[in-house]
């Protein structure tokens, strides 16, 4: 059970809480390695993981002003995850949508308000779930090299995720964390923003790429694949050698090629 030396409270198999993994659509499509890293970390934290059939959290519709579609998608997500003790997502943005905005969507709705509140209470972003809910304080992973960590906006400001990933990264053997300037400033992704306003998005991510490169770190880490794809894509276009990975991959010791590499 405790094969990687992680703290696993309530480690008896029959007591293991059931976690429904909310994969997130980008991880599902573009980078399954993040999903498998999440599964490993959650299992190592003493939980059983299941993956119910799912599509998306509905954020693209929500932020485009299509409230009706958002509610249709959200009610389906809530229903699909009702059997689980916890819902965990490897993304601050999607977890923020599930945890912060779903209750707003159903406020005053007699049929759904309570179901949305119960769903919200058991939903967590992956790293904060490990640290804040499962009291994980160290991981048994090795990663040779230096890395810099970008604080993705929704995780940081909606869910208060800042210390948790740094605390776990500090226990990764061989990893040296180099903080970048303005690590808490947006990378310019913003979901559909980056394709609706590509020129502005580019100006913001170009600045971010400078700050990343200035650290001299070999690897860029973050907790959101959208932001990572944006920053990785810009660094690659600029010819920078920085490799981008989801923080869960490093914490789980999963050695997939970096984003956009082979």
């Amino acid at each position, binding site marked *: 059970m405790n094969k990687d030396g992680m703290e696993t409270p309530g480690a008896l198999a029959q007591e293991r809480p059931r976690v429904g993994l909310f994969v997130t659509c980008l991880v599902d499509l573009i980078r399954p390695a993040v999903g498998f890293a999440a599964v490993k970390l959650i299992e190592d934290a003493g939980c059983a993981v299941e993956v119910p059939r799912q599509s998306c959290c509905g954020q693209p519709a929500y932020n485009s002003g299509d409230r009706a579609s958002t509610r249709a998608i959200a009610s389906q997500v809530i229903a699909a995850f009702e059997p689980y003790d916890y819902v965990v997502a490897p993304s601050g943005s999607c977890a923020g949508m599930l945890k912060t905005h779903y209750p707003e969507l159903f406020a005053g709705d007699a049929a759904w308000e309570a179901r949305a509140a119960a769903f919200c209470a058991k939903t967590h972003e992956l790293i904060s779930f490990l640290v804040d809910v499962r009291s994980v304080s160290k991981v048994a992973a090795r990663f040779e090299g230096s890395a810099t960590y970008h604080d993705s906006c929704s995780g940081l400001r909606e869910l208060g995720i800042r210390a948790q990933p740094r605390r776990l990264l500090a226990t990764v053997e061989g990893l040296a964390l180099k903080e970048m300037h303005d690590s808490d400033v947006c990378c310019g992704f913003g979901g559909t923003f980056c394709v609706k306003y590509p020129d502005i998005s580019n100006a*913001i991510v170009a600045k971010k790429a400078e700050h990343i490169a200035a650290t001299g770190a070999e690897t860029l880490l973050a907790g959101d694949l959208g932001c990572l794809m944006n920053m990785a894509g810009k660094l690659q276009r600029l010819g920078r050698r920085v490799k981008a990975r989801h923080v869960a991959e490093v914490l789980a010791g999963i050695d997939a090629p970096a984003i956009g590499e082979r």
Partner: protein
Amino acid sequence: MAFAAHLTAPAFKANAKEALTDAQLQSALHGIETGIVDRRRATVAKLPEFDALRDCARAIKNHTLAHLDLYLEQFEAKCRAAGGHVHYAVTAEEARAQVLEICRSANARLVTKGKSMIGEEIAINDFLEQNGITPVETDLGEYLVQIRHELPSHIIMPAVHLTKEQIEADFRRVHTHLAPERNLAEHQTLLTEARVILRDRFLSADVGITGANFLIAETGTSIIVTNEGNGDLTQTLPRVHIVLASIEKVVPTLEDVSQLLRVLARSATAQEMSVYTTFSTGPRRAGDPDGPNEYHVIILDNGRTAMLGGQFREMLRCIRCGACMNHCPVYAAVGGHTYGWVYPGPMGAVLTPSIVGIENARDLPNASTFCGRCEEVCPVRIPLPNLMRHWREREFERHLSPATVRSGLAIWAYLAKRPQLYAVAMSLFVLGLGLIGKLFPRFRWLPLATGWTRYRDFPASQLQTFQAQWKRRVRTQ
């Protein structure tokens, strides 16, 4: 409409494109990011109760908005009792007419102006000029944008988009009566020149117009918060003082104002207190050493009553500190003029559509990454991203969003509501992306995603989605 002359919000995208390639603007904008954000953080850190004060400030404004009619009536009564005149203006047109009438009855030729965003909102300078009265802005930044025939690009730093070199060039262009060989290369010499020019105007103005940061109901007082002292000279030296305010500027008591001032200066300029905080109650009384003979307060509505009863009510808490724009990555990239009207940045993205109509400002609430930094620093805790999202909902309902976005969203939502079908569609998509990905680890161009690939690479996928791989793994276990 009267604002049409300065309204370029409908051309937001073109404005942005131009701003992003304007080297001078980009160099000027760099100063905001590097200076004010750090200074605010340091100032706020010195006041442990800052967050509690923000809650307090929010509560004061919420309470006032809930009883706005009563406090406006109280302000009006107290102001009149002190010898002042109160005028209500439902529209910008009415406010302009009231200003003109007061100026005409004072036989005014020259009007000095302290900084007033309401003055910008009703475009009072253009209107006075059209009617043969010369307005002169006395706040240095406002003076600069006036001689350039521009709108301010920031609500408290109107000329933040200008470099020192541009200011020198403007002074040489406009102040042709001064010696051409004078030194204008330093901040100090630029300041001295502005002071010389403006000193003369202060002394010869017939009417002084200022804004108001707050109106106090219990005393009938208007307050201005400034750093240059120009506001005081504008309101005490001329014969007539006109205050341009709007309905949400009223607060109940002096005590309330002192709470609000504590969060205002820290949020706006990272100062613990502004250099001048000036209280004006009525005209000059017998025995006063100075002050105007007439004191008028014009209280503008211009769409605010409608906001009070609707989804955008919380926007009326705004105390115009500018912290939201100082912390906005979009504002930092494109500057204030890109927003195309008087109020830029996140607060403008919510307020501007309320005043000029969402059909005239479609891009403003959309051009945000929803990073949430604006809400994080707002001294009265306005949920700016949520309010911008409400505007997006209105646009969606009214079919104002672009057709390409709507149809793309409709197809995607159709699938997302049907997870089984979604799985099939996404498996095909990923298979395609993955097969090409066998040749390239990432793409420099993708159909339907050129907004992305114009500036960045897009990673290839594997051949199967996570859900498909997971299913296989569960089956084989």
